[in-house]
């Protein structure tokens, strides 16, 4: 017997939609950030002017337009989106991959090594470097997966440890590369670079490069694997209910290792693209680039979906590009870190909203029953 369902008010329906909650959380993060900037005596408007400029290239203060900012925003988005996928892919399989940073660093290192020492064959050189970056990322991630699946080692701790191991390992390796000083190596041969002359011309010499296309391909690959393949089905089942998946014959240990490997490959790809796309020489890392850590926030905001993560990554790219502009307007660039941190904390609101909705339902039912 079908009962007539009362149409719930718009606000309640919106709360039930994950996408809307993400938008709400981002807005809240910005709101608090704005207030904080105001509280310490700076002008929040400058923060938004910087963000607007990084997005559109248009400088409100002097009316000038520079397309390079658009190019840089797009270019910065690439590693954010890919590291977001790294976290998201693992999350769909039920794992918390905060090792994106280490997987990124390893990818970057291998790309630098192959870039400087690999075969200088046009069209082949950078491909080998990028593939190498993805493979080492997969290895670095797969290791975490095996430790979790076979030895029950928490991926939260093992990934953090491997992040630091990666950082120092990268230094050890890169200091041995040809022409290495304390902070850089010799320049790459042209065949290793991902630079794209067309992009450079239309964006007034920004660093936007072929990595952008690789990222777009990754978006499609992510969505495809998750939604359309056997592999994705098994991974999602494992992520939702590991024991039920196991009882149904799904090879859980293998699934966890594979999902961490694929997640690592995404982050490794990000490292490779940054290494060969945005720089003409290798870097001796002094600290972490933080794309990996930010990938966590990107995936959470994007709710682990393909489109959501891509949009969230773009948002973060825009914020990063705005940092230098903000600093120039006396706003400490760390405000973007604070906003990102707040967004992650506010994601906790998701479960609070579930509690709120349940409470509302209960109140409704209570009223109906007691009125009889």
């Amino acid at each position, binding site marked *: 017997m079908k009962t007539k369902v009362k149409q719930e008010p718009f606000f309640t329906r919106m709360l039930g939609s994950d996408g809307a909650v993400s938008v709400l959380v981002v807005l809240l993060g910005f709101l608090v950030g704005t207030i904080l900037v105001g509280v310490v005596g700076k002008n929040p408007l400058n923060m938004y002017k910087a963000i607007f400029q990084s997005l559109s290239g248009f400088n409100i203060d002097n009316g000038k337009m520079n397309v390079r900012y658009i190019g840089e925003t797009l270019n910065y988005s690439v590693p954010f989106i890919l590291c977001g996928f790294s976290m998201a892919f693992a999350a769909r399989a039920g794992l918390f991959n905060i090792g994106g940073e280490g997987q990124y660093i390893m990818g970057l290192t291998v790309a630098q090594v192959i870039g400087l020492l690999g075969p200088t064959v046009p069209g082949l050189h950078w491909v080998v470097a990028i593939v190498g970056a993805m493979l080492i990322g997969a290895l670095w991630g797969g290791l975490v997966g095996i430790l979790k699946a076979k030895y029950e080692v928490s991926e939260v701790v093992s990934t953090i440890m491997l992040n630091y191991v990666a950082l120092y390992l990268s230094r050890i390796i890169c200091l041995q590369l040809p022409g290495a000083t304390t902070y850089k190596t010799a320049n790459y041969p042209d065949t290793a670079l991902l630079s794209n002359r067309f992009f450079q011309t239309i964006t007034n010499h920004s660093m936007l490069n072929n990595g952008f296309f690789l990222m777009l391909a990754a978006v499609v690959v992510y969505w495809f694997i998750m939604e359309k393949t056997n592999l994705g*089905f098994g991974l999602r089942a494992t992520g939702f*209910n590991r024991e039920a998946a196991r009882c149904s*014959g799904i090879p859980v240990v293998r699934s966890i290792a594979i999902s961490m490997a694929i997640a690592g490959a995404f982050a490794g790809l990000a490292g490779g693209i940054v290494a060969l796309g945005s720089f003409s020489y290798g870097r001796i890392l002094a600290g972490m680039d933080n794309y990996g850590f930010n990938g966590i926030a990107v995936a959470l905001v994007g709710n682990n979906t393909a489109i959501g993560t891509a949009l969230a990554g773009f948002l973060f790219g825009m914020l990063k590009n705005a940092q230098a502009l903000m600093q120039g307007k006396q706003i400490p660039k760390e405000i973007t870190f604070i906003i990102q941190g707040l967004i992650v904390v506010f994601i906790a609101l998701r479960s609070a909203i579930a509690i709120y909705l349940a409470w509302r339902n209960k109140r409704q039912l209570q009223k109906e029953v007691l009125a009889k």
Partner: protein
Amino acid sequence: MLVEHAIEMIGITKTFPGVVANDNVTLEVADREVHALLGENGAGKSTLMSILFGAYNADSGTIRIHGKEVDIKDPNVATDLGIGMVHQHFKLVHNYSVTENIVLGMEPKNRFGVLDIAQAEKRVAALSDTYGLSVDPSAMVEDITVGAQQRVEILKTLYRNANIIIFDEPTAVLTPQEIDELMEIIRRLKSEGKTIVLITHKLKEIKAVADRCTVLRRGKYIGTVDVPTVTEQHLAEMMVGRAVQFEIEKQPPTIGDVVLSIKNLSVADSSGHLKVKDLSVDVHQGEIVGIAGVDGNGQTELLYGLSGLSPVSGGTILLDGEDITHATIRRRIELGLGHIPEDRQKHGLVSDFTISENSVLKNYYIAPYSNKYGLLDHDRMDTDAEVLIEQFDIRAGRGAKTMAGSLSGGNQQKVIVAREIHLSPKVLLVAQPTRGLDVGAIEYIRQRIIAERDKGRAILLISFELDEIMNLCDRIATISKGSIVGIFGQHEVTEREIGLMMAGSKRSGGEV
């Protein structure tokens, strides 16, 4: 003649998100009586008593204890009023001792405020003597038997000077002999002046020990009867709302070859202790073999070993001649092993998947649901699921695309049963198939099991409800401490004899 009521709960209403657990319910319990609270799963009995114990707060209604109106905000208030609860799922901390569990929250301290466990142990020993509830005060709770753990739960209430004691489904985990002992304990408590409320759905126990009985159905109060003068049949009808069939109709079995052969099987639990020891049993085509036993004697580990969830430490398992002792879970499924698991939430279903996705959990990776490149055919999954929903009468708001988590317990179980049967297994392992279900669903599932047996499948049924085993199965094996202590035909053995075997003694005759 005024009988003073120990408990009066008047007009109690309690709602949870999506369900009215108690709808204007009234309960009156006389002083020093044993009062049973009867109802199916989901009728609202546990909720009502949780309100009495202060675990929940009612939305509306009044409560009077010994004539005085009270507001029971939390368990502390209930305890002060002399109300104690022996929970169905024991609320004991596994790595604390018996004494620590009993005194938790009311610990004796020395003058520096430091815990005085020695004094606590003395008090526990004294209580245990007074009421004849034998326990070892210094033993770890995780090391003692289930019956002993229940005695600890009872002692918790007595330590707090309870004179109203609520028992929530106390016999689910006990052997027939332990049940008799519990009935004795209840009679003794009554003679010591306690008022007892017994929450149960077991009619036999109500007849054994209760004075009066209140029946709830779907959250509503149905009536209160005088137990000595009422029949079990009448109680059952009040509980369910219609005439109930106790006996299950089935044809005599047509037995074929042995399809599942278990020889000298040993399986350890997660901490390495051997829980299945040298167990042997065979199951033929077309028969239902039941394993009777009290929870904790290795049934769970047996199922884990057979299904592949746990590795096997010794012995062999042959499925239609093939050795599957160390085969992967997927291989066993492919060879024709079906499994309706004990815990449907944990092992049976993925709540965040739709009915369609859940129904292909075991075969999504092969045709027709997957092509040779590994791509899924979602439409085909949906269509096939719709057919199953139709065949098995599954109530699902959005058809094949309904989230499994939003289905009722009975419908969830139907999805699992439908999936397993649809895979046409040679052998079907069935564990606790009717736990937590209402009578309608229980009847349906049992009929389905018998139908599959008539189609020639070999079925191994594990259940803690002795009635279910005795009614459904063609042969009954009793498990005790990890091995089979006797296998008999359905009509060759009595419940009393099974009870003795559960406790470990072997009966002569039959196959061992």
